């Protein structure tokens, strides 16, 4: 019985659909928001998502990898939606963004710990807004009667003190890089990363003058080019360990990227264990299981992988 399906691709969106008579399952990928990282391809339980790499054109900047979803494999579970650090994928049922895997507690959600203390915010400042590499922070200044101030310069110094500040962060799309926190002089932003890991660019393997990884890195400052050795270096401070850089690096093993921990809501789920195993490593997964006291699960993983935890 062939299923009525749809796959459409435009310059800035990829849409997949199951068209049932009274139900509609849709996966939409915002290509502008997608940075071509590895998270969804690794996390997909059906291995339906593939990263498509693009050859670099001489003299131009490296192009970010793009994502393609196989309609015959996708089951619209929404795990890619949950795990995308940049909020580029949305899975909806009949237009509603309700994820059954979350509702039924069979998959956790990422914990994006973003605290904004507006009380400390200097009214005239906009460093954090400018700092955000993804333009996710929107600052609004309101007069006591609730009007938005368009031009701050027009407001007198005295009146400025009366202004109320509203800071809006597009949380769903925030990868929690902490650039805003670092740039903010007044301790307004408090961000905790949800992906922890390690990144290392081996200078001996990194080709001189190549900036491919830097070209695609969505986080300003996570990677930087050193004029000294003409190589790219990583800054653990801002890196979100998404792996967009690794996808374009032309030299094998020049770039080491490891995820060690992903902060998520509590859950007991085989699907999450597998996702974690692929995103981080079996070691990290068994660490998490141990922390949860799921000794039985650890044993079964060891048996399956023929691997022994320390």
């Amino acid at each position, binding site marked *: 019985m062939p299923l009525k399906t749809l796959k459409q691709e435009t310059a800035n969106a990829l849409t997949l659909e199951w068209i049932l008579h009274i139900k509609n399952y849709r996966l939409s990928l915002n290509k502008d928001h997608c940075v071509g990282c590895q998270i969804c391809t690794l996390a997909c339980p059906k291995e339906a998502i593939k990263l498509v790499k693009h050859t670099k054109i001489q003299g131009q900047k490296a192009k970010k990898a793009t994502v393609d979803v196989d309609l015959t494999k996708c*089951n619209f579970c929404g795990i890619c939606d949950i795990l995308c650090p940049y909020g580029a994928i949305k899975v909806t049922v009949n237009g509603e963004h309700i994820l059954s895997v979350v509702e039924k507690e069979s998959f956790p959600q990422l914990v994006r710990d973003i605290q904004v203390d507006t009380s400390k915010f200097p009214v005239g400042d906009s460093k954090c807004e400018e700092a955000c590499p993804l333009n996710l922070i929107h600052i609004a200044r309101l007069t006591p009667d609730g009007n938005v101030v368009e031009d701050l310069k027009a407001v007198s110094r005295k009146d400025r003190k009366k202004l109320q500040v509203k800071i809006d962060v597009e949380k769903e799309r925030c990868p929690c890089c902490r650039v805003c926190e670092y740039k903010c002089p007044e301790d307004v932003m408090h961000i905790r990363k949800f992906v922890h890991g390690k990144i290392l660019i081996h200078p001996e393997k990194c080709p001189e003058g190549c900036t491919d990884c830097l070209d695609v890195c969505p986080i300003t400052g996570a990677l930087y080019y050193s004029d000294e050795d003409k190589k790219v270096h990583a800054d653990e401070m801002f890196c979100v360990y998404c792996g967009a850089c690794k996808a374009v690096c032309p030299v094998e093993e020049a770039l080491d990227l490891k995820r060690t921990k992903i902060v998520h809501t509590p859950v007991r789920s085989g699907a999450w264990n597998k996702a974690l195993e692929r995103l981080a490593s079996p070691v990290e997964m068994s660490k998490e299981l141990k922390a949860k006291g799921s000794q039985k699960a650890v044993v079964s993983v060891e048996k399956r992988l023929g691997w022994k935890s320390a």
Partner: protein
Amino acid sequence: MGAEKKIEVEEPRIGVFVCHCGLNIAGVLDIKELLEYSKTLPNVVYVKDNRYTCADPGQEEIRKGIKEHKLNRVIVAACSPRMHEPTFRRTVSDVNLNAFLFEMANIREFSSWCHPSTPQEATEKAKDLIKMAVAKARLLKPLQTIEVPVTNKALVVGGGIAGMNTALDLAEMGFKVYLLEKGESIGGHMAQLDKTFPTLDCSICIEGPKMVDVGRHPNIKIIANADLQSVSGFIGNFKVKIRKNPRFVIAENCTGCGECKEVCPIEYPNEWDMNLGVRKAISVPFDQAVPLVYTINKDYCIECFKCVDACGARQAINFEQQPEEIELDVGAIVVATGYDVYMPYDNPLLGYGKYANVITSLEFERLILAAGPTGGKVVRASDGHKPHSVAFIQCVGSRDKNKYPYCSNFCCMYTLKHVVQLKEKYKQDVEIYVFYMDMRSNFKGYEEFYDRAREAGVNFVRGRVSKILEVPETKNLLISAEDSLLGQPIEIEAEMVVLATAAIPKKGADEIARILNVTRGADGFFMESHPKLKPIDAPTDGVFFAGACQGLKDIPYSVSQGSGAASRAATVLSKPKWKIEPIVSVIDPAKCRNVNSKCGICAERCPYGSIKVEEKKAAEVITAMCHGCGTCVAECPADAITQMHFTDAQIFAQIRAALETNPQDKILAFLCNWCSYAGADLAGTSRFEYPPIIRPIRVMCSGRVDRDFILEALRLGAGMVLVGACHLPYDCHYISGNWKMKARMDALAPMLQKLGLSPERFRVEYVSAAEGVRFAELIREMTAQLNALGKDKIKMENEKLRPILENMLKRKEKK
């Protein structure tokens, strides 16, 4: 030359009985001439004609002839041996003549029916056929039938309404039945339906209890979610291999409570619901499923193991479950694999798949069903609203020369049911149009049901729909058709279109056909042994058909055929022993090469592994395993093997008889019993006329056709030689006899050409039992080629070939 020069102890006394078959034979052939001619044949001591030889008086004539004239061989020149050979064998054994001293000359299917406009030539051909039968009869030997034990269990393949009835009936008779179902639950298409015509009773309400009966019957074992892997053996003694696919749920532990389904987060389109609704990754396709065992679909499951938690102490879930191989011994097999529904994606004019509000009838069935995905509301896919006008379009794919030329049998009736249901549900609120070619309502209560639909105020438009277009704003559909009663084109706007699509052979029917060695007709449905008299039997003994797999049927007829198949199977199962024909191979140890050197070719070529070869010993045939194809006989380099009833001597005698006069004008054909001979029979039965120049010799399998037969025929100057076989790769009734023949002939043909034979004079052709048209066309084509070559050229080639062929055949005799 190749003939055995053994002298029969008893001189043959042959009686020839020529049948008029009413006017079927006598209307074309000159019976008197045939009788006179028969008298002149050697060893013929008695001739007699009968109006109907197969009728009691005709049979009595045979018995009388045997007694009064001391006949020890009997020939009936009448219809095909595939029709009445068993009848006359019984007749002669009634008066203690061995059944294998009987021979038939097929002068009806092979002469009077296929050459009606050339009676004189047809009579000549009939004479030759009788002469060939006499030549063979002179060399016939008495044989004893072989008895094999019968396993009194049955396998039913397919758990739809037909298969369920077969299983229940057999189980009630006391036989153990294995009911194999490919899907997760038995029930078949009937379980998908809302109501049934013409009584409008709820389908699952009447089928559900039957399903439960099947599930509970102590004599029935349901093997669901399983595939048929292979079948070997023969009637009474089949060995069946089944692969049970993993459900990842342990059937014994699953209570069917459904708690796992509640916690499962994943939904996927329910194919059983025509993909209109969804089911969970762990679920049953529908609530009444039998057996009520849940299944995990690993294509969609994300393995969160929430179901394992929910199942808890019952421990019914096992993600590591492996496929299970089951081996069964059964005596009879009933095939009831059903049909599929055509999805008209490939017809751009109707817009199915393109326009949201164009659906198929089976989808409509799921919509109007109270337990369906919409809870019985007929709604449009585009906006979820109830349509105020619905157009039903008949014969989508059916009765269409470019698609499926046959009539799908039940579409007219289910559309009538749909319109009546829709009218009763929405009353005046819905306008209904039915576009039809012919309304076929030809069974009990059906015409009355048609009247009911007419009276309900449905608009019937007689005419074929040419195209459907969507109105982009409203998503309504514009239907263009020609009203053939008014003789003018019409255009109607409807809010929903329902396509009554063709029912088609089940996906995988080709695989089943291959496994069971049964053939399929041109339409893809299984071929019965005889369209009228053996509509339930497969050509393979011990295999029977039930339901739509053999030809489309509605529910009552599927049920009837299911019961019919049960009774046919019981005729086998109820016997402790089954008689098989003794047409097996016998090896002469004095001639077998294997005694002195390593040979074993026969064992290697036997499709059934029924020949045992040990070093320094003559090869031996395991008689119970021999199916009687004769491939080993043709392959044996020392001519040490004989096939009983189809000996080299007998076939050589037939060849010589056929080619005694004017050989250059004749096509000598070796036709395998199951495909080509049956195809030629069908050409006769269907009255497809072709030139009367062919002289056919029946062999059980094309694998039996020895290269010496070809050489002998050409030595005698045959205009053309044809070997007719079952289609490659899988149609051979004896698994691979046709392949062995092909290898043999592929080597022979270039050699003959090198010796100066025109390539068109020796042909290997594949004709199935369903290809009567093709057989007739083939003979027409060959005749044209023969005429194009011309007698002179043929005679010239023959002159050149004869000494070489004589030499080759002589050398053979020296061995």
